């Protein structure tokens, strides 16, 4: 029986979803997504605001009921077994949701109590996470007076107090400076090394690139799924970088070409995605620009994750058409 195989040891994914759908009235926020998130990996949700990342995470931790589809988290069916899984899940909300008027230590102590940690373990865990996330010197400070990076460290510390097997992090770094983001990701990799599975949503390309695997979401659907390197290699477009004296004129000329899928400007350069069927895309770009009497140089380059994102979401144009409908 094929089902029997799924139950064997650690081969079963940490999260498995089939046809997961959530509607709010007439709006479909999440539209039939399938997920297989392996254990002890960082899995990313990359997508713009409103693409269904938060709604999906909320369904995965049992806070929202799916309108259709099935979810199993750590071999438990959700949302039915949500309460059984509470001590095995850690959830970090998009907005800082610890208590501004409590101190760092009071917040940690409170969360440890709520997770039912007995006194000796509670003390040990509070000082362990304080050490780990560099919070010891902030113990007496109220959470409301912390900086963005400090708050986010506190939130992650609170989410890991009870040593969960699965962490669900909803845009954890949206209000955080680059240095703090770096440190935050180092902490995530340390957790993964201990066997924790992490699902993290983001709209930063550099963060998405750090994930073992990721899903690109747009309008509630998964439009691409896989390891970042695979996604970049398999992009259905050729990427050409153009250096032109008159970038505006170059842009106009390229947008008019039917083989050009998308043009993005990066300083004085243009980043051009071209139909992969085009032979010698760099040459094609130069011809086109020459015809429009724009002086330029062009190079064929490797696709970035942003290119993958643009390609997966329909090169901007299709997405625009979708919105218009």
């Amino acid at each position, binding site marked *: 029986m094929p089902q029997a195989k799924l139950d064997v040891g650690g081969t079963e994914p940490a999260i498995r979803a089939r046809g997961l759908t959530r509607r709010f009235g007439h709006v479909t926020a999440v539209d039939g997504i399938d997920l297989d998130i392996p254990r002890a990996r960082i899995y990313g949700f990359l997508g713009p605001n409103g693409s269904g990342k938060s709604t999906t995470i909320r369904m995965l931790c*049992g806070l929202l009921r799916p309108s259709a589809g099935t979810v199993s988290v750590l071999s438990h069916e959700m949302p039915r077994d949500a309460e059984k899984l509470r001590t095995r899940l850690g959830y970090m*909300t998009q907005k800082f949701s610890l208590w501004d008027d409590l101190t760092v230590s009071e917040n940690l102590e409170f969360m440890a109590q*709520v997770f039912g940690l007995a006194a000796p373990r509670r003390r040990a865990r509070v000082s362990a996470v304080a050490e780990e996330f560099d919070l010891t010197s902030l113990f007496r400070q109220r959470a409301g007076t912390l900086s963005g990076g400090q708050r986010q460290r506190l939130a992650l510390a609170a989410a890991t107090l009870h040593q969960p097997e699965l962490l669900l992090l909803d845009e954890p770094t949206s209000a955080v400076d680059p240095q703090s983001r770096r440190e935050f990701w180092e902490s995530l990799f340390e957790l993964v090394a201990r066997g924790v599975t992490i699902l993290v949503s983001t709209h930063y390309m550099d963060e998405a690139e750090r994930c073992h695997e990721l899903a690109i979401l747009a309008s509630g659907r998964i439009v691409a799924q896989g390891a970042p390197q695979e996604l970049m290699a398999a992009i259905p477009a050729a990427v050409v970088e153009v250096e032109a004296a008159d970038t505006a004129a170059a842009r106009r000329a390229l947008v008019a070409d039917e083989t050009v899928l998308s043009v993005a400007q990066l300083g004085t350069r243009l980043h051009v995605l071209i139909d992969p069927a085009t032979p010698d895309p760099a040459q094609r770009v130069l011809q086109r620009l020459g015809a429009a009497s724009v002086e330029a140089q062009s190079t064929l380059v490797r696709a970035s994750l942003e290119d993958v994102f643009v390609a997966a979401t329909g090169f901007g144009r299709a997405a625009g058409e979708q919105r218009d409908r």
Partner: protein
Amino acid sequence: MLLRLLAITTKEVRQLARDRLTFGMIIGIPLMQILLFGYAINFDVRDLNAAVVDEARTSHSRALVADLQATGVIVLQPPSPSLADLRHRMESGEISVGVVIPYDFERRRSGSDRAVAQIVIDGSEPMIDSVARGLSSVPLPARAGDYKSRTPVFEVRTEYNPERRTAVQIVPALIGVILNMTMVIFTAAAIVRERERGNLELLIATPIRSWELMAGKLIPYVLIGLIQTTLILTVGARIFDVPINGSLLDLYLAAALFIAATLTLGLVISTFARTQFQAFQMSFLTLLPSILLSGFVFPFDGMPPLARMIAQALPLTHFVEMIRGILLRGAPLSAMQVPAMKLGVFLVITLAIATLRFHKRLD
């Protein structure tokens, strides 16, 4: 289990202690109200429940009773056999006016300078002066133009509040009004605040159970309610000489029951309101009818049937009845079973609604 409950309570007390404004209101609202309401307010009445002790049993005494009833101020209940029974019925709150016609009624009527009969009034209820004046001006009936313009027909006797001071009528009920106000608003806001600030999303993703969350949040407010009760009683006794005739234990038991009922009402509101402002508005929506219909200012007896029905659904109505009975008439809690039961029913119903409506989910 107890750990989580305690964790919530501790957190709530800490937050409350740091929220200076709210903390100030806990003490400030009762003080302001008692000082405002403590000074006189007078009113007008109809349809008070009354019973007669007719020791004379003559045709004239019956005519007098009929005339009293015709004024519309009183509604006659079955007569009492004795003055003791009349007092007992007044103590339990069944009647608020008693008419005593002495056995020597006929003799007094025909000559004596003494009043011919007595009206006994429950002074723990407001607007007593106008009732007394209205009834005592009823002329003495007689056959064939036998009216004489003479000394008052009735001697008016006000029980439980002999000096007829409004403060005595207002202050006990004010305990209920203040508790109703602070308990409903503060508990509704305490839960909605967590929803509004996003704390609730984090809390419901923890193993905490709904009842632990609710009970943990309510416990501090029960204590605050009892502190407020003490504050109003002390100020009432010191400044306005409001007597405490009943037992303090009975009084605090009644207050605790009422506090529980208002807290669950606050919980129900918290399951409907999305923002603290909505919670505040909804609390106010329950507060206004409570103040107007509970018998706190306007006597319950004069209201149209619909208003009475609404009043029955308000916890304050029953608490005002209990607190006046205990504090002013010195009635034991056992004489207050009916309002206590009604409060209990209210508590059970609201608790059931709150529990059914509160989910550990966002949808």
